[in-house]
């Protein structure tokens, strides 16, 4: 999948991935790839600034954690982030439903009246 296609949805995708629990940057990118069946391979460089942007917007919070002797910055969803994710999901469903309705091959249903 082209990264340009994903750009407009990057925030919602990150929020959705982080909603499963606190994750560090690499794990977020891995989850995006795994959950999309390998279809979403974003350039990693775009994800870290996005994480900082979402944190600045109050949708994510972050803290340092010590794992196997390594310090890692871990991100988790805030309450505001949960609400935002809910909104984004509802908007996406509506949008996807509408696009699906238009893109699906029209079923033959007899002659259609064309307005004059």
């Amino acid at each position: 999948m082209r990264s340009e296609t994903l750009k407009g949805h990057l925030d919602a995708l990150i929020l959705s991935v982080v909603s499963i629990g606190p994750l560090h940057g690499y794990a977020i990118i891995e989850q995006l790839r795994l959950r999309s069946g390998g279809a979403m391979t974003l350039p990693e460089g775009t994800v870290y600034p996005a994480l900082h942007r979402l944190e600045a917007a109050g949708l994510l919070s972050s803290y340092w954690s010590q794992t196997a002797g390594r310090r890692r910055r871990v991100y988790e969803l805030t309450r505001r982030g949960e609400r935002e994710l809910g909104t984004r999901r509802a908007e996406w469903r509506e949008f996807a439903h509408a696009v699906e309705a238009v893109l699906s091959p029209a079923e033959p249903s007899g002659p259609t009246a064309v307005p004059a």
Partner: protein
Amino acid sequence: MTSPYQQQLGRELTAVGIRGALHRRIVAEIDDHLQCDPDALLGEPRALAQQFADVIGSARAKTAAVAAFASLVVAGVVTLVIAVATGGTLRSAQPAGGPLHGPTTLATAAATVAVIALQVALACGLLVALRWLWRRHTGVLPAAEARVIVRRAIVGVGAGITGVAAIATAAVAERHVPGAPSAGPVIGASAVAVVALLASVPSLRAATRVRPLAEGPAGDVVDDLGPLAPAALKNRPWRVALLVAMAIALLATVAGVLQADPYDGAARGIVDGLACLAGFATLGPWLGLWSRRGRELAG
């Protein structure tokens, strides 16, 4: 041990004004990522650092806007309390006519500075708050717009400090004048206002350090009105300025009528309206109220 990539990223982050704890955090996050995946597609260090600068610059500009507005509100309330409690320390700002001597000269000069500075602070505070209101959910602002927001915040806070200091100066200069308010409480209240204004300085400093480069226009006074701007004003910032100047002139005239001095009110209204237009013409491009490019587009 750091890789050449991290070293270069560190230098690029410094070059765009990202330093201290945030600098260390970003380098550590990227270091962690490269340990997990040495072949990660992180892009050129300069481009990555610039992305961070755009994100952080926007966030800090918005924080500076909120901090400046909040401190200006506190200072405004304190100033209002001073004005009500003293029955108008700024009266000497009115042209009294005749020769001015000693403390009266200083008091008049200080009160004049206070009136002008507080109006500039009020205008900048309102403009910065309006722009924040419409752009608060925008993740990355154009660099030009972020700079305008920070500039307005700095000018607003600076004018606020100047205005409050001038009020205190006027009170001190008039302390021996019969009937003048006691200088002590005015100085105390002014100090509270200055402290409130100074509290916003760290946010302003942080916002000026980062150098975003995101493309896009700075916007103008019509963008400050956001969805409130009627269609007739779109791309016509000078119409907004004219309407505001007329409103100011009308308000001053009405105030004059209420004080049984309509001619003085009208004269002050005309002067204030013209001052508003002069300020718009001279400071407008710098404070993002209008731009020559915008005028060309509108034309």
